[in-house]
């Protein structure tokens, strides 16, 4: 081949079949992008649907199995550099359930499963779907399934029973997350190289659909492991899995000779048979009370009476109801009890005492929730930390992570022993982010190990920052490192230190400092190749950009990078942080719709996520949805934090605002009063929330017609809020409106002009709040008979609102009505028709907007009458207006006027 000649299709095909390479091929490819692209693209020859779907991330190694549901492949996750098992599910496998439902359910269950980290469960990493093919990436377990114990060599019976007890504990962990396996059978249980059973394939089977399909795929020859309730199509419960597990154990112990449920038990050890007989009860309620109880019963049945197993009663008051093994000569074994020092009955008692000193802490819901969470975390620690430690003994990052978690736990407990109000507000969030699950994948970070003392110090500083104790956090970070760090470790330490300092600076409102630290962190993260570090630093940089003058451009650039990084290394928690940052970007860019879409696209149900929703729905004019969202948020926060927590106040204020917008004024006033009361009771009340709740109350009162009380609420809000608070201008605006209602049009004009100025400063030129302030200013001018100026204000406001919220937003209606009525005053009836009609249409979409609709329809009728003389049409409009005004109850004068018109214009 000549170097200058391009490749033919045949040559390309031959090259890919392993044909000889011409000498100058590389030289030609280097110069000819067309040939390069053709050869490169065609080299993806074997790209089947599966490879396409996982392109760029998984490299397929071999096929592990093929079944009715699809294929299982062994693959290499090139991003996290680990082997995974990829289960490729054929869409036909979902049968009647349909791909849509199956995908949603699988995603949901995978999300649940991803939250469960247990040594007896095959870890689910990821679930995805492309071109009708659903795939699940899960931990690759080298070894055969329990079926091989039936077919061939099983360990001795005691070992089998103990292995099944382990499997039961794995299933118990899933049950604790409300995931039922539904299809426990030997082929779904893998045996790893330590002989432990790892339960796999959660949620793949349904009582209908897939399992029918599986039977259809010729599985009828294998013994049925389905519980009676499953065969009967009744509701499944945790005990269903117990049945399947017990049947599997019987099958192994009898080498598959038993075919019926109870058959074969007679040949087994009496104690084991007794335990299994209960688990195999026909009525699910007659089985062991829980999977954990089943596990314990199995263990008791085969352990020698003297027992090496001790109950954890010594940990105090039965708080940690788990079993821990006696000390072994293994550094991980003592890890489980390391938590006892930080959490025991004495500590719990002292925390209860300390909480009772505070308004928030006295709340029984709050105290119970905190204690429950500390218990759960302690139990998780006792159960999983030794296993994680042992399993990843060769990965220092996992041990480091465990040390961090323990230190973080200790700081929270110490803080709760002598908390401030601010601590109590921060603790629930800090506790909610504590999870050992994060440690499981830590081995992949690649950062060199730090000395334990430094790890703990950094972790403590992080929690202190989270709790708002910035001075203490800074002091910890500024302390010199415990030993002289090796050069290879410095970037890893530097990364953590820089992130810590950045977070402190950000919490302290030192935005420029924070930016500098995040930059330093990014550099170190890049240097050691830590993706997590890069993501943290970039999200930090994005937030700082947003905070320094709303620089959404820089923030977008950073977050684009974060998105790309998280695509390669999925991380649920960081994903949500990034999503919330995107929400901020869109909000600042006056794109609430996009912000809401972003929010809705994250699968998270966390409080931070839920807290952002009602406000966006409100801005978008989706008021009834906002009511529901805010009410749900309030309930969730109350359950988590108790009814007197300021964040509950915040949620209630949003709820009340949504109610007001929906025209439900009585409810709005009640909820807003509750919000105000929460802030009044809190000893260190946040100014913003306090002022804002008063504003919402004022608004609700005003809309209900209680002007004096409303004015009082607004004035109190103005006395509390700092002038640069985003609510200040809004309250000012509302006060102006009240003045107008009291007949003080020039006083109102003054307040509205001040409001426009303040809002421009706090919200930016084209913000919808500025637009709405223009609406009110227009009204004040209109009342003074300055119709030209008023029209200009309405037009300006409408332009801003349209730009900020889009032309379909119902708030446009007020401004359009303003424009229309100014034009009518100037007798430009023709020009008034369009805006009035548009106002009606926009407002018709809002339920309970009768008062407004009545007035606008009446105005439109008059415009129709004057502009076109079309009396029948005008009449129809007035009739509709009368109906609206009758429904509104609140506007007797307008109603009378409309009725008079009807009488004057008989049909």
């Amino acid at each position, binding site marked *: 081949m000549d170097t200058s000649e391009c490749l033919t299709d045949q040559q390309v095909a031959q090259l890919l079949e392993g044909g000889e390479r011409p000498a100058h091929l590389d030289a030609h490819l280097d110069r000819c992008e067309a040939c390069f692209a053709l050869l*490169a693209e065609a080299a993806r*020859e074997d790209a089947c649907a599966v490879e396409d779907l996982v*392109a760029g991330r998984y490299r397929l190694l071999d096929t592990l199995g093929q079944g009715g549901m699809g294929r299982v492949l062994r693959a290499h996750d090139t991003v996290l550099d680990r082997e995974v098992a990829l289960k490729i599910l054929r869409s036909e496998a979902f049968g009647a359930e349909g791909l849509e439902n199956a995908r949603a359910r699988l995603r949901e269950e995978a999300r649940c499963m991803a939250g469960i980290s247990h040594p007896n469960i095959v870890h689910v990493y990821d679930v995805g779907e492309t071109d009708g093919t659903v795939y699940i990436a899960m931990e690759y377990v080298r070894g055969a399934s329990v079926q091989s114990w039936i077919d061939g060599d099983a360990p001795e019976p005691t070992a089998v029973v103990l292995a099944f007890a382990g499997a039961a504990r794995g299933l118990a962990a899933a049950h604790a997350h409300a995931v039922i396996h539904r299809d426990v059978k030997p082929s779904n249980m893998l045996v790893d190289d330590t002989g432990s059973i790892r339960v796999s394939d959660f949620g793949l089977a349904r009582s209908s659909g897939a399992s029918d399909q599986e039977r259809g795929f010729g599985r009828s020859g294998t013994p049925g492991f389905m519980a009676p309730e499953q065969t009967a199509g009744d509701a499944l419960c945790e005990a269903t899995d117990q049945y399947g597990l017990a049947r599997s154990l019987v099958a192994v112990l009898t080498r598959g000779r038993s075919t019926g449920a109870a058959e074969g038990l007679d040949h087994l050890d009496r104690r084991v048979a007794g335990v299994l007989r209960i688990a195999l009860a026909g009525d699910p309620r007659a089985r062991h009370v829980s999977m954990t109880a089943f596990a314990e019963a199995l263990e008791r049945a085969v352990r020698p009476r003297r027992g090496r197993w001790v109950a954890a009663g010594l940990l105090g008051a039965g708080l940690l109801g788990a079993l821990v093994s006696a000390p072994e000569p293994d550094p991980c074994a003592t890890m489980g009890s390391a938590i006892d020092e930080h959490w025991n009955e004495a500590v719990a008692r002292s925390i209860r005492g300390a909480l009772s000193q505070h308004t928030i802490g006295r709340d029984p819901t709050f105290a119970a929730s905190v204690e429950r969470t500390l218990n759960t975390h302690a139990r998780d620690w006792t159960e999983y930390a030794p296993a994680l430690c042992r399993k990843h003994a060769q990965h220092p990052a996992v041990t480091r992570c465990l040390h961090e978690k323990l230190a973080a736990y200790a700081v929270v407990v110490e803080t709760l022993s002598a908390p401030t109000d601010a601590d109590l507000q921060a603790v629930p969030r800090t506790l909610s982010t504590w999870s050992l699950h994060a440690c499981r994948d830590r081995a992949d970070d690649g950062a060199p190990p730090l000395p334990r003392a430094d790890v703990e110090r950094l972790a403590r500083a992080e929690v202190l920052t989270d709790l708002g104790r910035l001075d203490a956090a800074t002091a910890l970070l500024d302390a010199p490192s415990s030993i002289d760090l090796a050069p290879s470790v410095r970037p890893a330490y530097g990364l953590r230190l820089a992130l810590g300092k950045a977070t402190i600076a950000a919490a302290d409102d030192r935005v420029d400092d924070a930016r500098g630290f995040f930059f330093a962190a990014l*550099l170190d993260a890049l240097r050691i190749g830590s993706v997590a570090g890069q993501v943290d630093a970039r999200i930090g940089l994005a937030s700082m950009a947003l905070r320094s003058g709303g620089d959404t451009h820089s923030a977008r*650039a950073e977050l684009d990078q974060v998105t790309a990084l998280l695509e390669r290394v999925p991380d649920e928690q960081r994903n949500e942080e990034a999503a919330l940052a995107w929400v901020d970007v869109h909000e600042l860019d006056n794109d609430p719709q996009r912000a809401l879409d972003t929010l809705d696209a994250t699968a998270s149900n966390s409080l931070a996520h839920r807290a952002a929703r009602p406000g966006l729905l409100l801005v978008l004019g989706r008021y009834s949805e906002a009511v529901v969202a805010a009410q749900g948020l309030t309930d969730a926060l109350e359950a988590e934090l108790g009814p007197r927590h300021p964040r509950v106040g915040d949620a209630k204020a949003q709820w009340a605002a949504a109610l007001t917008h929906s025209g439900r004024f009585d409810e709005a006033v009640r909820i807003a009063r509750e919000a105000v009361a929460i802030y009044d009771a809190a000893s260190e009340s946040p100014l913003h929330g306090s002022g804002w709740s008063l504003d919402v109350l004022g608004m609700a009162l005003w809309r209900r017609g209680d002007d004096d009380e409303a004015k009082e609420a607004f004035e109190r809000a103005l006395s509390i809020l700092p002038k640069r608070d985003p609510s200040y201008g809004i309250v000012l605006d509302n006060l102006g409106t009240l003045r107008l209602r009291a007949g003080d049009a020039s006083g109102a004009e003054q307040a509205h002009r001040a409001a426009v100025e303040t809002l421009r400063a706090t919200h930016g030129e084209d913000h919808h709040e500025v637009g709405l302030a223009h609406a009110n200013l227009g009204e004040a001018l209109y009342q003074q008979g300055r119709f030209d100026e008023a029209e200009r204000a309405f037009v300006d406001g409408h332009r801003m609102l349209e730009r900020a919220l889009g032309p379909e937003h119902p708030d446009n209606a007020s401004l359009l009505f303003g424009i229309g009525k100014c034009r009518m005053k100037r007798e430009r009836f023709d020009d008034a028709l369009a805006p009035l009609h548009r106002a009606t249409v926009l407002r018709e979409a809002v339920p309970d907007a009768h008062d407004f609709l009545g007035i606008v329809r009446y105005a439109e009728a008059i415009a129709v009458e004057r502009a076109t003389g079309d009396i029948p049409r005008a009449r129809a409009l007035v009739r509709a207006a009368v109906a609206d005004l009758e429904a509104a109850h609140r506007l007797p004068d307008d109603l009378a006027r409309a009725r008079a018109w009807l009488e004057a214009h008989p049909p």
Partner: protein
Amino acid sequence: MNTSLRTALAHREDLAWLDAQGVERQLDQAVTRWPSLGVSHDALVRRLVDVIERCTPAPESLEALRPAEQVLVVACLQERPGAIEALEATAFGGLRAVARRFKGLMTEAELTQRVRTKLLVPRERTEPQLATFMGATSLARWVRVVAVRVGLDAARADGRRGARERALPSALPQRDPEFYWMRQLYTDDFERVLGACLDALSSRDRNLLRAQVTHGMTLDDMARMWGVHRATIARWLRATRLELVAAVRTGLRAETGLSESEVDSVIALIHSAVSEGVIARGLAKTS
């Protein structure tokens, strides 16, 4: 009586395999693979003569010409009923995967139609492309390459830079803010040095980087492209990257007078995954 291939090619003494027994039976078997297409033994012989006369170097066996697939080619060129359906059933299986790569540009049906047209419709006195199928590879593999070219042509016509880049947005970041601090510090130095170093690489090394960074190819894809084992590709790439890093390090120190540790932090960027965007940009500039 059928014409034998030997008789038809009596002048080709170089083709010893034509004298072997069973050649004619193989031809009959090829014809009976598609009995419903009605391709005659003689028509296949004429086709094979045509193919053999065009082949350089001369084919080494009858199998190398894929007689069964040539039957299909004859049927299609003779526009026999059912021929196109048979062709598609035999050789169009890979089109779905190709269509997926050009998703957004055309549907699978559109791609199939364009491939069909390209293969079967003669253009300005040139024969249909199907007639040029010499049997050097399987018909399916060859059709797949034809389809890839169709896709790339469409992508080019569409003014886009090819399906790959859309499929792998993360490999080609539009903005890379981690570089703005660097740009502030070193302005164009870095990119100039990188560009010079990329230019200094061998064609193959540059191609390797381009395949991995710009086209996002896996080691396995690249192994197919270069016809070597993936371990070899991995070794080549490692060496190339080390060479590039060393060259950039030297170049940067010479150009900017940066200290070693400062250069190190720049180098760290090249090692890290995100820096692929920069290499991609550098490669775009050199080509």
